[in-house]
């Protein structure tokens, strides 16, 4: 590793510290820990709704959990319209969705576990009950959010144009390549339970296990080792994880569960089954004056813990206005339970579909009013900051308009329109592809802590991050964090921050995460929060550590702490060559404390925390597509991103997040859809649920702006979800542009070939 004695580490595309083990195949994912251990297999409901009559076989069921006093999962939102349900770990009297776990068997091997599962006989009387939780409610409404600005009606009336649009987002599955899983070991001599789990929030899992199993948290250790992707699907508490922990304690040994892909696609968590009915009131020049929205979210059969099943509808309600400046907004956003797999946030949560809805509305309005899609955005994007949205969300400074201007400059619309016109002439004979271009502009809310979560009145308020930092006698820096990265390169990014702050070599820094025995309580990694909140806490901790080192150096060098400067692993007196290596100071601080003044704190150990109100990154996406009118198939020919996430700690890692996010956004727009037919999920394998391959994804061009605000002390704004948020909108706008000369548009995610062909076929009949 190079030593940075003059260059900073922050801002460098340093190779990731996570890589060597992973490319060697020496990562430790939960299945690797589980290899060779007794295996649990869940027996799941084949019906969407029914009464459980009997369960026979070598199983454990809710009866066994009840006998042990095991609790039920309750996710709470303090709102009068919130439907609170209490979820048993295994189905009690009723099943409410296909795939709901009813019983569990344990085999010595995975093969044996499946053999045992085959022997289990479950008798269920299916029914057609529409009410999902008829035992506690007479409605399927889980939340009914309503909001209106006082002048909404008047503004709506005063509009020159009212343009409406309905956007349908079909159900998605986050589909991490590693399925969920847990391996729990009960140690007889210590009485402690150690659980390796593929999760995003190890501390939250530990607390939940304690609450539900009535075991002290001090006697539980959760380890999130290497996690093979999550995208939100490993954030909520998994019933199965708790059952596995219970089994390990019950059997006083090791029990593992590795979810198979069918379970993952059908009975883990789904997302984004939503519909938006929008009406925009526009002035004659295209300025948006008021927005009316009716939003419906199907949230499945159970709430998710701790975020709750209100997450999608309430986020949609609060953030739909996006990056546009308008004052009047009326919205009703309803979450409805159904006999389907429960819903939980998936990267972007409601923002991919809500952005698609709003961006399609703007393009529709632009067409009707007679301005270009670029011009209508120019007239509406927020340019004065801080900006407070109609729902009270505060946007710190961003570059919404500048990002679009730069993207437009790079795309060259004039040349494209020429090619598009020529293609239309050729396509007129029924052959040849149609070309289209689509734009989306959006702001991504990131890095928000307690101040924002507390407003949501959840029973569990996440947000803060603490960091424990120590330098050991040999001069190595230990950084213990509560965030829990799973591919985002956070270890590397934090190392870069610490290296700059302490002027030490990157290979003298160790970031410790994921193990609840070794880290301070934290909320894990989700919602594009880690580099902002954990990074901020690390920066604060490092500054404190620098002060401590300065005091030790001051004693040793007989100077004033304020005269100590750090560079290249050394502390010296400013303006002189008098100094000591930091490693020597570390040794003195521990082993030669007699050389220090009595008042100087011995050892080198600090704690710091950060809990901000959040910030916004922003981006403009431009997509160019080719539509085959005969088959309806869409090829993405070009995809351009201009993004602003403030300071990029590691630009290479940031771009990786953008590329991965855009890819999931393209998947959302064109390929992926969970399909139910009556009780059956048709998309139970990856040949039916369609994550794209390298052939379907173009190279993505990325440019950066850097707006620095004080909403985030590192200057980093977070951007993990941006790709998923803007890409579907850009693609839908592009496809709609491609077929606009036929008077057609697409307002559905995904825009499958079948759906596009149906639109074109309808036009051919005329």
């Amino acid at each position: 590793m190079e030593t940075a004695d003059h260059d900073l580490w922050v801002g460098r595309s340093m190779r990731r510290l996570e890589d060597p083990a992973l490319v060697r195949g020496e990562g430790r994912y939960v299945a690797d820990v589980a290899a060779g251990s007794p295996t649990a297999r869940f027996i799941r409901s084949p019906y969407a709704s029914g009464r459980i009559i009997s369960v026979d076989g070598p199983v454990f069921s809710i009866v066994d959990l009840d006998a042990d006093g095991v609790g039920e999962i309750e996710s709470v939102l303090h709102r009068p319209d919130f439907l609170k349900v209490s979820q048993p770990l295994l189905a009690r009297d009723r099943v409410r969705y296909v795939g709901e776990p009813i019983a569990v068997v344990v085999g010595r091997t995975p093969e044996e576990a499946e053999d045992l599962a085959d022997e289990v006989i479950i008798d269920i009387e299916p029914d057609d009950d529409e009410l999902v939780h008829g035992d506690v409610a007479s409605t399927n409404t889980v939340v009914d959010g309503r909001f209106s600005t006082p002048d909404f009606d008047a503004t709506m009336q005063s509009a020159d144009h009212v343009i409406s649009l309905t956007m349908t987002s079909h159900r998605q599955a986050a589909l991490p390549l590693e399925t969920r899983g847990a391996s729990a070991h009960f140690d007889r001599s210590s009485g402690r339970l150690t659980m390796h789990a593929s999760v995003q929030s190890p501390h939250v899992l530990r607390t939940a296990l304690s609450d539900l199993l009535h075991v002290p948290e001090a006697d539980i250790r959760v380890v999130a080792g290497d996690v093979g992707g999550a995208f939100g699907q490993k954030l909520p508490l998994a019933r199965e994880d708790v059952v596995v922990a219970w089994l390990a304690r019950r059997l006083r040994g090791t029990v593992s569960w590795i979810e198979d892909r069918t379970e993952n696609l059908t009975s883990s968590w789904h997302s984004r089954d939503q519909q938006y009915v929008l009406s925009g009131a526009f002035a004659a020049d295209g300025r948006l004056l008021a927005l009316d929205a009716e939003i419906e979210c199907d949230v499945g059969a159970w709430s998710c813990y701790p975020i709750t099943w209100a997450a999608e509808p309430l986020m949609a309600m609060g953030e739909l206005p996006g990056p546009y400046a308008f004052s009047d907004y009326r919205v009703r956003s309803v979450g409805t339970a159904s006999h389907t797999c429960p819903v939980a946030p998936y990267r972007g949560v409601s923002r991919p579909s809500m952005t698609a809805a709003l961006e399609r509305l703007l393009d529709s309005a632009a067409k009707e009013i007679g301005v270009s899609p670029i011009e209508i955005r120019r007239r509406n994007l927020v340019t004065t900051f801080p900006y407070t949205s109609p729902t009270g969300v505060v946007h710190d400074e961003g570059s919404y308009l500048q990002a679009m201007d730069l993207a437009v400059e790079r795309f060259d619309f004039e040349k494209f329109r020429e090619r598009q016109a020529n293609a239309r002439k050729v396509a007129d004979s029924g052959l040849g592809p149609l070309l289209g271009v689509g734009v989306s502009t959006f702001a991504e809310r990131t890095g928000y802590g307690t101040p924002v979560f507390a407003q949501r009145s959840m029973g569990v308020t996440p947000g803060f991050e603490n960091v424990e930092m120590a330098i050991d006698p040999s001069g190595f820096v230990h950084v213990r964090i509560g965030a829990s990265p799973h591919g985002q390169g956070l270890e590397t990014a934090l190392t870069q921050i610490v290296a700059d702050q302490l002027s030490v070599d990157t290979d003298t820094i160790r970031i410790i995460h994921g193990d609840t025995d070794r880290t301070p309580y934290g909320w894990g990694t989700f919602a594009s929060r880690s580099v902002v909140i954990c990074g901020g806490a690390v920066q604060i901790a490092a500054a404190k550590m620098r002060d401590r080192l300065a005091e030790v150096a001051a004693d040793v060098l007989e100077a004033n702490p304020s005269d100590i400067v750090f560079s290249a692993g050394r502390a010296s007196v400013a303006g002189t060559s008098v100094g000591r290596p930091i490693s020597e100071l570390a040794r003195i601080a521990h082993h030669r404390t007699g050389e220090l003044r009595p008042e100087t704190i011995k050892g080198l150990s600090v704690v710091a925390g950060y809990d901000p109100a959040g910030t916004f990154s922003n981006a403009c996406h431009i997509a160019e597509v080719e539509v085959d009118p005969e088959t309806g198939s869409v090829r993405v020919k070009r995809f351009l991103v201009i993004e602003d996430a403030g300071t990029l700690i590691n630009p290479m890692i940031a771009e990786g997040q953008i590329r991965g996010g855009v890819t999931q956004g393209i998947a959302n727009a064109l390929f992926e859809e969970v399909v139910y037919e009556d009780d059956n999920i048709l998309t139970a394998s990856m040949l039916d649920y369609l994550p794209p391959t390298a052939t379907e994804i173009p190279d993505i061009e990325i440019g950066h702006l850097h707006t620095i605000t004080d909403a985030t002390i590192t200057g980093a704004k977070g951007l993990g979800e941006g790709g998923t948020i803007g890409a579907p909108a850009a693609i839908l706008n592009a496809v709609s542009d491609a077929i606009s000369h036929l008077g057609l548009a697409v307002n559905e995610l995904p825009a499958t070939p079948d759906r596009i062909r149906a639109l074109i076929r309808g036009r051919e009949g005329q």
Partner: protein
Amino acid sequence: MKPAAFQYFRPATLDEGLSLLAEHGDEAKVLAGGQSLVPMMNFRLARPEIIVDIGAIPGLNGVALDHERLTLGAKVRHFELEHPTFDGPLAQLFATAAAHVGHLPIRKRGTIGGSIAHADPAAEWCLLATALDAEIVVQSTRGSRNIPISDFFEMYFTTAIADDELLTEIWVPALRDDWKTGFSEFSRRAGDFAVVAVASAVRINDGKVTEARIAAAGVAGTPVRLVNAEAALIGTTPDADVLVDVAEIARSEVDPSGDLHGSSEYRQDLVRALTRRALSQSI
């Protein structure tokens, strides 16, 4: 997802293999490349009690073209047909179709015999066999017989192979140099099964079509010959306009059921588009 338990045999000779099939009949499944069978076993959709792995049986993997026919051994891997060792009109068709079979790793292990015995109605080799009037050679302890393709595919995943029989060869009638072939497939992603695929072979003499074979996969429980389209094409001097008409006829002669990957009407649209595209390669 782990398979149910089975007894495993790996016969060293064809006779041994045939004896095993005679003995175990419907309890046994033949394992060749495993690219179609093993996923079904992992899902426990297939739970054979006996597996007869023909991997050690020598031969059964020849590729030979003479003036009468192309003879393909059952164990010929898809990959080999991507770069055929024979030439003529069949070579282009086989090479193109082979490149559409799954992905490279699947093509390295999967076999043409396995694919045809598996009888997925969207599979490229089943389509080609149908289009080209192939004969399927099966052997058992009772002897050998040739099953004409018209009798071979009964419905999806079901063939006329008896429980004690092993598919050993595929015979494709040779096409002389006055034949031209075409192939067009639509799938959702690279490497996926076809939603619809069309294969064609057209004989042109003095500028006119004298014989035509057009078949479609993904429109029924087995691949089907588009006989009306064939009849419409014969006798014509094929140009772009003729193909548009023929493609329209092809569309109207199929009656596919819809599913997750394509509605009925959509599959009909695909038949029209792909028939025209396949035939365009032949004129």
